[in-house]
């Protein structure tokens, strides 16, 4: 009996030790959680703070998130003020200098890429405009490759004992990712010039990558819900200029898109937006597979 107990104790201690030995990663959004899993594999343990059903602008600094950030060796977040309403509070209350801004354990995706729509003027009268530029950068897969490169470097710096494994995984991912980008670009050729309406301005990077043409947004200003007056203007524009689809993310209200679709030939198109946003979008590859499939379907 004693022997069994002792064995159990030793096993549990060893198990706890091996779990603790893995690099703890706190990912603010599902896309970065998925990327960390791709690059870290079994060597890391990933906690993703938000889901595809949650608006990443509107998250509360919940106790569960503070507790997870306290344990993290590395936090990877979008940055560019996307998490302005919650991340700074988590960082202040997590009592964890390893993931403080400016340290090796805090990686801001927005700092690794060139942001679009950097505002010419900063005025809250223009709505919820981000001073550093549009933060929804993961919807251009070439940006994911850039962030992946930076993340691989951080993993190596934080866990040098496993440097070779991280390097291998990083190279393998970059290979597969570049191949996938080539396939997506090939398949998405018909999408060039496709006219779209967007619910919120979070598709800019996808638009630029695929050559989609945005003619209007349902939100009168970023972050301000659509008013009936503004929707009427959008409807007039759609009727005049024509558009194929109105894009909205899994976490967004579908009613304004449905309203527009009921009055014009434009189709409401719910895209996963991030990993977990639909049944097929279980990883980063699935996210873009499905996004392009859905856009192509809408075009037919």
């Amino acid at each position, binding site marked *: 009996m004693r022997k069994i107990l002792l064995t159990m104790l030793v096993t549990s201690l060893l198990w706890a030790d091996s779990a603790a030995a893995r690099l703890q990663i706190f990912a603010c959004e599902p896309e970065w959680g998925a990327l960390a899993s791709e690059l870290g594999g079994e060597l890391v343990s990933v906690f993703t703070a938000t889901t595809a059903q949650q608006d990443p602008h509107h998250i509360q600094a919940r106790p569960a998130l503070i*507790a997870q950030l306290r344990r993290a060796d590395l936090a990877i977040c979008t940055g560019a003020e996307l998490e302005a309403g919650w991340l700074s*509070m988590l960082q202040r209350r997590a009592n964890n*200098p390893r993931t403080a*801004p400016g340290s090796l354990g805090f990686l801001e995706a927005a700092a*690794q890429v060139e942001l679009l729509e950097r505002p010419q003027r900063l005025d809250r009268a223009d709505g919820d405009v981000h001073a550093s530029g549009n933060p929804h950068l993961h919807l251009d897969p070439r940006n994911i490759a850039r962030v992946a490169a930076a993340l691989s470097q951080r993993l190596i710096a934080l866990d040098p004992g496993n440097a070779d494994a991280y390097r291998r995984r990083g*190279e393998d991912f970059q290979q597969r990712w570049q191949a996938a980008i080539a396939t997506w670009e090939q398949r998405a050729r018909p999408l060039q010039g496709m006219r779209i309406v967007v619910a919120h301005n979070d598709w800019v990077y996808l638009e630029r990558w695929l050559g989609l043409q945005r003619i209007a947004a349902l939100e009168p200003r970023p972050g301000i819900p659509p008013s009936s007056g503004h929707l009427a203007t959008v409807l007039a524009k759609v009727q005049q200029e024509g558009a194929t689809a109105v894009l909205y993310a899994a976490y967004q209200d579908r009613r304004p898109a449905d309203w527009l679709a009921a009055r014009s030939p434009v189709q409401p198109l719910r895209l996963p937006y991030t990993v977990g946003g639909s049944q097929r979008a279980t990883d980063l590859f699935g996210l873009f597979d499905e996004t392009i499939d859905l856009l192509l379907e809408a075009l037919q």
Partner: protein
Amino acid sequence: MRKMTLGALLLGTLAQPVAAQLSDSAAYNPALSLTLMGQYANYHKLDELRLPGFQLGGEAGLPEQGFSLDHTELTLSANIDPHFYGQVSAALVDHDGVTKLELEEAFVEATALPAGLRLTFGRFFSGVGYLNSHHRHSWDFVDAPLPVQAFLGGGYYDDGLQLTWLAPSALFVELGAETFRGGSFPAAKGDDDVGAYTVFAHVGGDIGFEHSWQLGVSQLWAKPAERTAGHDHAHHHHHHHAAIAFTGNSDLTIVDAVWKWAPGGNLRARHLTVQAEYFLRRESGELHEAGASGRYSGRQKGWYAQTVYQFMPRWRVGLRHDRLTSDNRGSDPQLLAEAGLADADSAARRYSAMVDFSPSEFSRFRLQLTRSEIGGESGSAIFLQYIMSLGAHGAHRF
């Protein structure tokens, strides 16, 4: 082989220097935020906050009848260096036609301590209870609940030290301890170096994606010396018991609970918050005024429970109920009564309902109706409030 080389090449060319960071603003200037708050208040038989059985202090009180400004709050914050974070909050408050500047917060946090520790020093809101560490602009009702007014003077802040420790577990466990000068209600400056100290514990977590919760228990020990009822500044209140001073011990226990729910975890659309706090205070010591003195011991209780529901983006409704009662003993009943501590009519209860609309994250309008039964008298109030944030708007606490 060729494949590996291409991968390595990509890694090399795409990676940028590890130190590259974007910051919220490129400049070194502290984040600056200004909150404009004000209201229109209309009272019916309730034109001042009088709570029999309680010696009020701090900022307990009601807004003035008619139009008036609430606190105009200016907050500056920034990292000082890799080791420290600093924040200052000052409130501009009108009192009898004179505008005063109240320094509510001026603290430094040591952010680089190991082992989940954080040290805060300077002037700050105590971490006891739940609502006390929330700024007024993030309150869900125009005024603080009655027990927060009666036991914490509307919000307890003081000069001192705070140490917190966060457990390295998936369950949120935060333990904290504070020592204060004891300069403000419920303490009052005595000759001791330390006039108040506290300990508190909070635990919390998520249940699935939709539910989150937090529970807390706190204890505040204060040694008020010559504490009189009255305020540093006033909106509207009670100066009539000001002459009688209390010296002794004032120990307060707070139990707090919060539960939040958002369908699908997406609080942008809809979400519900239920929160409650229970307060128990024991005071004992001496009451004295010129020429008279007597023993006093009190046992005072109160609680509030409130719920706020955002039923569609930008619109919220809320209900709140608060209650107070006291059981006070004194060797000189007349002195007890003159101090406002007679407990004969100490039962107080209030019902409040509010609806608010936020055109954006930075602006909010609120309508609140309150009905109160205090000391056997009933009264009611209507408030129309605005809360506007200019400049940097920091993240809110849970």
